[in-house]
């Protein structure tokens, strides 16, 4: 894999490790508020120190610990959303592409277009707005908007693969449809979905942060990067570090997943035109 991709992989591994070991890694409890007891005055009291490398937020909570726990939430959401939406998307796409006919017309002709005609994050906002803001509903909403992309990809791939000779051979030998789909079609169709899944994680992390920023996702005091960034808005003048650290965290995560996705794409398809 190209260099950027490897770099992204390293970053992601670090983030995953941080997420898994968050309770152990975080030096302080992310929701305990405490008055800073250093000798500085005014806004200076919140700034980064050796004791609090990322500083404190407006309620006296340690920003480093909150960023670490935020990593856990982001990774959780990313993995869950991608897992659920790829699963649904693969199944629907494979069935639609393999069987064709009215099944295909309904799914790809109608259903996909309906979902695609909505700006997807709007649908997520709508769902969370009405179902009630919570992490649970957030994951549900993001999965609902996410599966369509994978389904379309899968369908396209299946349309190609099902014409291959070995599929015809399998059918001639009497293999059942299910067997053909799972053992033969799927493994050959799955490559672009892996690339899409990596990019999808970047999207899911971004979406979670966006929705939490709007107050529609994780609820305070739970530390999500989006929530932290929203809190930071009112304190830009006196505590810009509240913006800096969660902001960099989000950017790094998105960058890393994009690098990995691009790296995977190049790696899996050497025929790609390089420009």
């Amino acid at each position, binding site marked *: 894999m190209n260099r950027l991709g490897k770099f992204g992989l390293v970053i992601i591994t670090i983030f995953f490790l941080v997420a898994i070991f968050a309770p152990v890694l975080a030096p302080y409890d992310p929701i305990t508020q405490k008055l800073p007891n250093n000798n500085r005055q005014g806004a200076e009291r919140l700034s980064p120190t050796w004791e609090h490398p990322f500083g404190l937020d407006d309620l006296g909570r340690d920003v480093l610990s909150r960023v670490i726990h935020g990593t856990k939430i982001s990774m959780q959401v990313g993995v869950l959303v991608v897992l659920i939406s790829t699963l649904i998307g693969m199944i629907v796409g494979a069935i639609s592409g393999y069987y064709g006919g009215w099944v295909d017309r309904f799914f790809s002709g109608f259903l996909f277009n309906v979902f695609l*005609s909505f700006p997807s994050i*709007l649908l997520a906002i709508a769902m969370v707005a009405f179902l009630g803001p919570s992490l649970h509903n957030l994951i549900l909403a993001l999965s609902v908007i996410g599966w369509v992309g994978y389904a379309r990809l899968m369908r396209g791939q299946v349309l190609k693969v099902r014409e291959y000779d070995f599929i015809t051979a399998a059918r001639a030998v009497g293999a059942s449809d299910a067997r053909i789909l799972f053992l033969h079609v799927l493994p050959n169709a799955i490559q672009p979905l892996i690339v899409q899944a990596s990019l999808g994680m970047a999207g899911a992390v971004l979406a979670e942060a966006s929705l939490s920023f709007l107050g529609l996702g994780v609820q305070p005091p739970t530390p999500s990067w989006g929530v932290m960034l929203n809190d930071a808005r009112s304190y830009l003048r006196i505590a810009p570090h509240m913006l800096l650290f969660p902001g960099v965290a989000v950017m790094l995560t998105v960058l890393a997943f994009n690098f990995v996705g691009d790296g995977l794409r190049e790696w899996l398809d050497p025929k790609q035109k390089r420009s």
Partner: protein
Amino acid sequence: MRTIILVLAKRLLFVLPVVWAVVTLVFLLIHIVPGDPVRNALGDNATEVQVLEMKQKLGLDLPLSRQYFNYWSGVLRGDLGVSLVNPSDRVIEKILVRYPATIELALAGLAVAILFSIPLGVIAGTNRGKIIDNLTSIVALLGISTPGFVLGPLMIYLFAIKLDLLPVSGRYGLEYLILPAVTLGAALAAILTRMVRSSVIEELQEDYVRTARAKGLNERQVVYKHVLKNGLIPVVTVIGLQFGVLLAGAIITEVIFSWPGLGRLTIDAINSRDYPMVQGCILMIALTYIIANMLTDLAYRLLDPRIKLE
């Protein structure tokens, strides 16, 4: 002229089932609320009588099919109901008041994106491999991975607080549009720059470029008069595809900069549990997106004379 109308009509026909689905989905939204939506909105202090009255007013006590019929007839008449928290406010009026602000922001963001990406993309594409190209790529990458809710406050910090050059929020004049437009357009600018660059690189390898150069045209003429015209077609497609992202991004940008548009109205309505208002806002945004897509499709067909307008 006649062909354009025919294309438009055909496209409209395809769009109708989608519009139907969108209206139906939006209608159903208020019914997925766990618990009682009216009680949620009115709060714990509301009496039984008040809740019942509001339910009647919104028609929520009618059978579902009747509600659906009423909703559709309302939509076709342009009546999107009344606000749940402020029943004297008509949803459609509040939306229409805010609508121009959002369109202004979206178009400004689009303009920023195009104004940045075309020159940058051309420079990068024509100087492929050199430092300026790599620099542009890095900036583009940063633009794509910096979400609006990071870039916006960052710009506020830099330009409004530290440098005191631009205002923080609100919509009281042209200078108030600058930061929000740049925040909104940044991500799209990054995507477009990369696209323009690839397009330019590809087109520069075509035969007609050799011909133009052989004819004696200077480099600038070659690029701007010929390469760009062909290279811009995929760009138009991308703009169309990304318009939805732009609209969604407008919601976040409006919140950050207190921009009085449809996006902020939506979020305010969500926070006050004003469900009919939220439904109306979402419907408007979705319909805008669908219309914008149709227009992009039309523009795309008009731009590329190789595509038959049938």
